[in-house]
């Protein structure tokens, strides 16, 4: 059974802080790992990672994957109140009709205070 564990489950920081969110996984035949951001609405896609050691970056957010140690991190630098959200990590297995059949972690609730 595929499994994704995120840590911490919640985090409270002040604007300007840097945060690191963790995601460890177990999956049969790994295809990809994805990060989503969920505010009080639909989760929105952030990153997809398939190869170890290649950093994906978008503005103040970045993410990297370690396929040997089976984890990924999501970094947010110079946090803003608009970064407050639930951050979801998910893995996708390879093979068969598994496209889009994601296994999600519990999510990390990030709260950024002014």
């Amino acid at each position, binding site marked *: 059974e595929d499994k994704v564990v995120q840590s911490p489950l919640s985090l409270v920081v002040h604007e300007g802080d840097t945060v690191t969110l963790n995601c460890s996984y177990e999956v049969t035949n790994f295809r990809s790992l994805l990060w989503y951001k969920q505010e009080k609405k639909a989760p929105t896609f952030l990153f997809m990672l398939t190869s170890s050691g290649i950093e994906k970056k978008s503005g103040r957010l970045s993410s990297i994957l370690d396929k040997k140690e089976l984890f990924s991190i999501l970094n947010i630098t110079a946090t803003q109140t608009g970064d407050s959200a639930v951050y*979801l990590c*998910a893995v996708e297995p390879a093979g068969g009709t598994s*496209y889009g*059949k994601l296994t999600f972690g519990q999510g990390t609730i990030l709260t950024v205070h002014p």
Partner: protein
Amino acid sequence: DVKVTQSSRYLVKRTGEKVFLECVQDMDHENMFWYRQDPGLGLRLIYFSYDVKMKEKGDIPEGYSVSREKKERFSLILESASTNQTSMYLCASSLPWANVLTFGAGSRLTVL
């Protein structure tokens, strides 16, 4: 702007009632998914569909069924709602052979 629309944002139903949750996407996506989201458990896959009239069970299909009569519409059905089905339900869609899902805003169901 591409969209996945869930018609009901909030529903309150009684135990034993039949519940329909509707999801419509305007992106001509082949793949559609139903997840439920509970605190501490994350999102769990209930059912998915790769084509019209086609469905496959996800990780927690018990107590649910689905219908996909048209490409753009994927319905989740609770034949006899129970209190343990109180949850947030998220619909999503994607292109074939694609793993990036576009989610709807969710339907929060309370079963009393």
